[in-house]
């Protein structure tokens, strides 16, 4: 799977049920490709089911609110 296809498979929905359905459709080989291509990690044997379950549980379900600045902050003071 190419990177674009992998990303599209993750962007399948704005609501959790649709995201869950998209993740459920992922074959073990697709999951392995995603781990290699998107996470940059070599898949472990048997890891696919756990990754799919994770994606089912933790895809962020809500649409963007363009008027709201995300809460992430940057502290300009250097830290070690």
């Amino acid at each position, binding site marked *: 799977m190419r990177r674009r296809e992998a*990303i599209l498979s*993750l*962007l399948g929905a704005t609501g*959790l049920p649709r995201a869950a359905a998209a993740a459920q459709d992922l074959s073990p080989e697709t999951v392995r490709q*995603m*781990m290699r291509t*998107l*996470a*940059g*990690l*070599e898949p*472990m044997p048997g*890891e696919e*089911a*756990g*990754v*799919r*379950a*994770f*994606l089912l*549980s*933790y*895809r*962020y*379900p*809500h*649409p*963007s*609110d363009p008027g*709201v*600045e*995300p*809460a*992430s902050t940057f502290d300009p003071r250097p*830290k*070690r």
Partner: protein
Amino acid sequence: MSRELLLRPLRELSRLLERREISAEELARAAIERTEAIEKDLNSYITFLPERALEEARARDRERAQGEAKGPLHGIPVSLKDVFDTAGIASTAGARFLEGRIPRTDAEVTRRLSRAGAVLMGKSNLNKFAGGESGENPDYGDMKNPWNLNFSPSGSSGGSAAQVAAGMAALSMGSDNGGSVRNPACVCGAVGLKPTHGLVSTDGMFPRAYSVDHAGTLTRTAEDAAVALEALTDGDYTSALSRPVKGLKLGIARNVFRLGEPEVLRVFDSVVKKLSELGCEIVDVEVPTPEEMMPAMYTIFFCEWGVAHEPWMRSHPEEYDGGARAALLISAADYLKAQQQRRLFQNRYAQALAKVDLLVSPTYPIVRREHRRFPVVEGRRLTLDDALRYTMPYDLMGLPAISLTGGFAESDAPVGFQLASAAFQEAKVLQAAHAYQSATDWHERHPSI
């Protein structure tokens, strides 16, 4: 030296040291003997440092003799959850494969406690990588609750809470990114303070999730928490303790409340009654529900966790089973959308806190935490989300919150409650907690171990 002495609040031990009625060496030796007697039951330490502690205590006594005592923590036995870097001492984050990780420098918390004259007893056991509230660790073994060894001290700072409750240390530092200081404090009968995000430095603290990580204190009283926070921040938190709480407005978010075992709810009702008797005004408020907040919390949490742990996810993949490495598949867009939502939640919390001085709630919906099993409440087995529903919001919002004992379900089962405030209002949180402890004696009960 008696067990009863070791169970006295930090502030009392401090006064005994100041008056030279005991020495730091005597106190450290007593804490070592107590630890050697009960540690096999509690499994609270990953690294216990008796020889180092005695050496450090003798140095503290010499400093005091030379008129160089550094303040109320001088000579006090303390422990650190094993997420705080200690120069020259293994800092494992609860993972055995990190035993060879020996930092060259101290975490800022370690440095500040050392600068304040505290005596380090050791590095406390925790849930592996500070994840979860079960008090379990597959590498170092389950931690046990000193009130009843059949149960968990909760987590992830379970070793720290057990040590403070059992008199092995007068102060222990924990970390909190979902309730990991407050939940163990709750079931161990201790006081757990999670300050405003960033108030206590997390520099040199093993990361879990950067924007929700907090360093916090476990002590036996709110006054002790105030004393510790002063050493950790240079702020003034003890002056406010004597202020009356009459007229303080306490908010109860009834749209969130009422999940818990019956004794949790009964104790909470009695706490509200007592706070009312002290002159606090009880006001109903509305805040975002945990059900609303959890998706944003988990997206932010796992994304940051994946980034923080990527090197080890790569080098030790077997340590991250169950699909945990999928954290690195969370998209930047999802992360930022969750951060947008976080901002909206912040606004709603600000609206609620504009009406009241403090929010009050139970800390933990569970009275006795079994290892590997949640209890059934109202016909449903609780989940991790349920267990964190009262504590997690203050991590995501970065607001200060404290847990203290509000009663007992049985003679061996303390039940806590939580007070929280707007950012950087720790003095107000501590003031109310101290007033409650001054009017009750729950914190004077100790486990029989």
